[in-house]
């Protein structure tokens, strides 16, 4: 697994595997809002390789200023509080990459994503990954990994979930999962097939393409 923080992508370069999986889900020339866009690596890639009309929201000032300095349209804001300001149906895709677990109200955020966008793309670290399970089983302490290096008392990640948890929540909310992919410890992307147990065990991250389905606006 690559380090989470890396230099923003340039025009034709390789971006992180999970970001590439997300980018592959986005149609060219669409309207995209990236919530929690960080230093803009994904947004930059989408704007320059898929010619999207891209916007971003990022909570850290450094991230925002880096994005705007690169010509990206990004505002400083918080997924928990600032999504309410966006008009309904204003984007084709709203992306929430590696941010869901750090929100105060993940369910409300998910509702907002699918209100603002016709589709949402959500990725998150899978807390049921075998390394997490093994770490907890053997050491009896909150797991720390390369991707999630924080101590429990200082982590920004306050709402961890598993791939299975997420799928159950989508079902409860009437959200349709169009595509679901896991990215494993080896950096390979795999579709979640018939074996949920297997996906939930070996997927280090889950990436989901969602639409409103029967969800109430």
């Amino acid at each position: 697994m690559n380090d989470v923080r890396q230099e923003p992508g340039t025009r034709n370069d390789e971006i992180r595997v999970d970001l590439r999986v997300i980018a592959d889900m986005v149609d060219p020339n669409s309207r995209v809002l990236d919530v929690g866009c960080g230093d803009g690596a994904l947004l930059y890639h989408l704007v320059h390789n898929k010619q999207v009309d891209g916007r971003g929201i990022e909570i850290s000032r450094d991230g925002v200023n880096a994005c705007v300095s690169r010509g990206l349209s990004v505002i400083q804001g918080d997924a928990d509080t600032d999504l309410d300001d966006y008009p309904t149906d204003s984007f084709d895709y709203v992306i929430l990459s590696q941010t869901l677990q750090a929100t105060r109200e993940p369910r409300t955020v998910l509702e907002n994503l699918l209100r603002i966008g016709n589709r949402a793309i959500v990725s998150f670290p899978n807390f049921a990954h075998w390394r997490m399970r093994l770490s907890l089983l053997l050491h009896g302490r909150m797991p720390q990994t390369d991707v999630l290096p924080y101590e429990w008392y200082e982590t920004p990640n306050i709402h961890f979930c598993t791939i299975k948890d997420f799928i159950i929540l989508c079902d409860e909310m009437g959200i349709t999962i169009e595509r679901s992919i896991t990215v494993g410890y080896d950096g390979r992307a795999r579709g979640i097939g018939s074996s949920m147990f297997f996906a939930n065990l070996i997927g280090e991250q889950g990436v989901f393409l969602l639409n409103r389905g029967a969800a109430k606006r």
Partner: protein
Amino acid sequence: MELTMAAPPGDTAPTRSPTESGNQSAGDGLVRLGVDVPLRLDSGVELRDFPVAYQTYGRLNADKSNAILVCHALSGDQYLTGTHPVTGRPGWWETVVGPGKVLDTDRYFVLCVNVLGGCMGTAGPKEINPETGRPWGLGFPVITIADMVRAQALLLDHLGIETLFSVVGGSMGGMQVLQWLALYPERVFSAAPIATAAYHSAQNIAFHETGRQAITADPDWHQGDYISHDVIPHRGLAIARMIAHITYMSESSLHQKFGRKLQDREAVTYGFDADFQVESYLRHQGSTFVDRFDANSYLYITRAMDYFDLSEPHGGLLAEAFQGVTSRICVISFTTDWLYPTPESRHIVKALNASGANVSFAEIPSDFGHDAFLLKEPEFWKVLGGFIDGAAEHRGLRG
């Protein structure tokens, strides 16, 4: 203030000497507008045949797509860079405007217009009322930020510039930028309102009123007719400037710059001389301002700012003021600006978002307070530069 008459506008930029290749290049412009059709002001008064003074830097390209309008603040003027004709000091945005700088005059045609009500050549209380042949004084109509912008739009018509590549300005300049978006969204490709607000707060009005009271309490003000008496209300205007200057700085910048340091003395003098450096500094700010600024202009322009409330015509819904805005916009605020604090910028961003505009928002960490946009603040330059470059790419302007 003497300005030379500009050559009639053509396909090239107004006067720029071919020998001036670098940062001194500038074109003086002075035109009379409202000659055929008067400008109808918000007050209902019609302004006819009035002068508008401006400066240009760089060259207008063949399809006139590279024009950047810089809007100046309350005490600013059209002299962005190069030597100021009155003060002999560098222009107020020397740090940002020039060859290879953030607003690159090798790439863009940068234009700055003295605002209506100003005192550097554009119609204002100091200029001659053509009907009486005497200075307007308090006979000059009260103007608004929207009036300033309408006059700028008339100038662009005159210059044959249909669309601005960008409109950029800080403080009152930022108010003009927002007003441009509200009045002429189709003429603005990109916009950067900096350290500004969509309305003037009670605190802002209060500071302005204190300044105006200082001016009008000066016996030399003579009910605004001081030119006839051959005096200027220098004490009142200097005090107004001193008060305002405090609001432009942060507590921490005042502390870092002066602390409690004494001015050219070892101990306090037990009197009311300027014992402290900060006192001496403010007195200097006040007295130099009087040399370059007209007291009545100060009354008119602060009034225009007080009247500014972009959402007022829309029942308080700011997003309505931005309907139809498709421009790329970058709102910028500074952490220690307490005159136009970051929440004011967030308010603008929220409204622009709700109207579906393409908006960026960056808060720049700075110790300088409101004046940060005028000072050495590299992160601000980087953000504004990145925004302008990104907009230029979308505009198809070549680097």
